[in-house]
C-alpha cells in the first residue's frame, strides 16, 4: 500500500514536472558544491557553473556551497523539497548519499554528479561528469616512471584523507612503489591540503637526514609548502635541481613555477563540467536517452621545459 502511494506520488510529481515544463521552459537546477574559497580549482569550477546556468540559458539555479557532507546532504534534501528539476552534486565525501539520492529519484528529479563520484548504485543518478582522479595519479606516476631514475625516494604529501582527490592521486603511486624495488616512499603523510603543514612535513624529513629526490604533493599549495622547506635548507629543486617537484591542479602561479623550471610537473584537474551537464539536461528535456553514465573530463599534465606561456593562459586556474 505504502509503496503504491509512493509510486502514485512519484508519478504525480513527474506529471506535474512535465506539465510545468510544458508551461514554462525555465529549468530549475539545485547545485550542491564545495565553496569557491576551497581552492583555485573550485573557484574556476563555481565560476564555470555560474556562467552556464543563467537565466539567458533558460535556467534558474539554486546553489549551496559547503565543505561539510552533512550540510550538503541537508541542502540537497531541501532542494528536493523545493521541487527542483535537476540536482547537480559535487559531494564533500563519497559516502552517505543513498537516502537523499533515493528521495530524489522518487521525486523524479534528475541527478547529475560532477567533479567527484559518490559511492552509490549507478541507478540512483542520471549521469556523472567527473575528473578521473585515479587517471591523474596514473599520468603522474607514468611520467615519473618515464624519467628512468636509478632510485626513486619519494616524499609523498597527501591531501585530506578519504577525499576522492587524495585516494585517486595516492593509489597509482602506491601501487608502483609496491611493485618496483627501486621505488621507495621516504615519508607518506597527510597535510590536509594545508601548505604550512606540508612545509613542516618536508622539514622533518630534511632534519632526519634521509635521502630523497622526489616531492609528490597532491596539490599545488602543498607542493609550494614543500618547496619552501627545500629553499630554506638550501636544497636545489626543479628542472636542473636535485629534487623533482610535482604538484596537481594547474593553478596559474603553479604553472609559472613549472615554466620557470622551479617545479617539474603539474597535473591538470579540469574544472569545466557545466556545459557537458547542460547538454545532457537538454537531451533529457528533449526526451532523448543518455547513452553514457560516466563522462570523464579529458585531462593532461605540464612539465618543465615543455610548457609554454600559451598553456598557462589556456589551462591555468585563478589569476
Amino acid at each position: 500500500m505504502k509503496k503504491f502511494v509512493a509510486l502514485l506520488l512519484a508519478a504525480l510529481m513527474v506529471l506535474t514536472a512535465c506539465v510545468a515544463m510544458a508551461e514554462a521552459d525555465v529549468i530549475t537546477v539545485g547545485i550542491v558544491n564545495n565553496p569557491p574559497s576551497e581552492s583555485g580549482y573550485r573557484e574556476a569550477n563555481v565560476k564555470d557553473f555560474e556562467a552556464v546556468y543563467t537565466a539567458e540559458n533558460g535556467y534558474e539555479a539554486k546553489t549551496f556551497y559547503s565543505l561539510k557532507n552533512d550540510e550538503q546532504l541537508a541542502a540537497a534534501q531541501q532542494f528536493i523539497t523545493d521541487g527542483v528539476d535537476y540536482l547537480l552534486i559535487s559531494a564533500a565525501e563519497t559516502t552517505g548519499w543513498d537516502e537523499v539520492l533515493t528521495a530524489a529519484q522518487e521525486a523524479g528529479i534528475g541527478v547529475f554528479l560532477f567533479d567527484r563520484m559518490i559511492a552509490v548504485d549507478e541507478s540512483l543518478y542520471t549521469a556523472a561528469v567527473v575528473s578521473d582522479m585515479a587517471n591523474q595519479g596514473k599520468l603522474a606516476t607514468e611520467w615519473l616512471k618515464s624519467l628512468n631514475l636509478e632510485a626513486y625516494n619519494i616524499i609523498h604529501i597527501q591531501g585530506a584523507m578519504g577525499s576522492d582527490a587524495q585516494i585517486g592521486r595516492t593509489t597509482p603511486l602506491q601501487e608502483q612503489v609496491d611493485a618496483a624495488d627501486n621505488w621507495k616512499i621516504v615519508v607518506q603523510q597527510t597535510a590536509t591540503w594545508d601548505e604550512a603543514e606540508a612545509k613542516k612535513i618536508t622539514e622533518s624529513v630534511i632534519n632526519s637526514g634521509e635521502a630523497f629526490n622526489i616531492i609528490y604533493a597532491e596539490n599545488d599549495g602543498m607542493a609550494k609548502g614543500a618547496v619552501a622547506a627545500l629553499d630554506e635548507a638550501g636544497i636545489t629543486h626543479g628542472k636542473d635541481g636535485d629534487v623533482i617537484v610535482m604538484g596537481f591542479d594547474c593553478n596559474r602561479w603553479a604553472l609559472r613555477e613549472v615554466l620557470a623550471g622551479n617545479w617539474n610537473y603539474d597535473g591538470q584537474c579540469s574544472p569545466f563540467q557545466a556545459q557537458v551537464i547542460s547538454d545532457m539536461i537538454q537531451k533529457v528535456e528533449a526526451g532523448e536517452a543518455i547513452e553514457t553514465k560516466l563522462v570523464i573530463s579529458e585531462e593532461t599534465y605540464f612539465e618543465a621545459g615543455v610548457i609554454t606561456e600559451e598553456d598557462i593562459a589556456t589551462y591555468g586556474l585563478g589569476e
Partner: protein
Amino acid sequence: MEKTAQKTKFSWSKYSQLLLPLLSLSLIILFNLFRDPSFFSVAITENNAGNTVLTGNLISILNGASELAVLAMGMTLVTAACGGQDISVGALAAIAGSMFVKILRSGEITLGTIALAFVCACAIAIVFGTFNGTLVSVFKIQPMIATLVLYTCGRSIAYWLNGGATPTVESPLINAIGSFIPGIPVPTPILIVIICGIIFALIFKFTTLGLFTQTVGINQRAARLNGINTTFIKLLSFMILGVCCAVAGCIGVSRLGLINHETLLLDVEMDTILAVAIGGNALGGGKFKVSSSVLGAYTIQALTTTLYAMKVPSTDVKAYKAIVIILIVVIGSPVVKAFFSKLWAKLKAGKQTGKQVKEAA
C-alpha cells in the same frame, strides 16, 4: 633565614604553573633523545637565497609553533578574563591575513606598504575581536557560542575580501618576514614571537592589566565593586587576541607568500585552547600565566614534529596525538596535581630540615 624561606616559597608558587608544560615538554624531549639522539642537533647551512641559516628539528619546532604561540598569548588573556575560549581565532587570522594580502597586492611591495598592510590587518582583526568581545561582555553570551558566529563565517569573509582562491604575494621582503632576514640565521617568526613576548611582559609589568584580568576572571562582582570596569577588561582581552590573530595570520601568509583562506591556520583554535590548557591555566577564568601557555604551544608542535619524525601513518596521526594529550591533561588534572603537590610538600619539608641541619652545623 625566615625571610629567605618565605621568598623561595613565594617564587615557587609564582612559577608552579610552569611545571606542567615544562614536564610534558621535557617528556617529549626525553622520549626523542632516547629514540634518536641526533633529533635535536642543529646544523648551519646555506639556503637557496644564499643566507647562512640554522636548521634542525629544534629550529623547526620553535619556528613552526610561532603562530600558535602568539595566539596562545592572546587566548590566555581571554580565557582568564571571560572564563571561556574563543574558537574563531583561525577564522579571524584568515580574515586578517586576507586583508594583509589585499593591501599588498594593491601596489608595489615596500617596507611602507607592508607596515600599512599589517596595520590594516590589525585594524580589521580588532574590529572583529570587538564584535566577539561585545557579544561576550555586553550581551553575556558564553564565549564559545559567541565566537561560533565568526568561526562559521570567518573564512568566507576572508574569501570575500580577496576574491581569488589562493592569491599570491611574491617579494623578498615578505620572504624575509616568513622565513629569514638576510644575515640573521634565526627564522624571523621566532623573533616575532620573542618580540610579542617582550611586549606582553612589558604590559604586565607597567600596567595593571594582568591583575585586573585575573580579578575579573575570579570574581566579577567583587571586581566591579572594587571599581574595575569588567566589560572593558573583557572587551580589551578580545581586542588583544584580535591583534594576536593578525600577527599569526600575517606570519602564516608570509611563510609561503600565498593565502589559502580555507587552510590558513586550519584547526588552530583547538590547538590554541589546548596550549592554554597544557599551560595549566584555569579554563574557567582567573589565574593565568602567558609564558606557560607559550610553553604549551611549543609542546604541541614538538609532539607533531615527533610524530612526523616517527613516520606515523597519515591516518593515525590524530589518534596518537589524542593519546599523548589525554596523558598530559590527566597529569595536569586537579586529582593528580593534588597528589603531586602533597608529594612535593613532603620532599620540601625533608629538604628544609636538611638545610636547617646544614645551617646548624
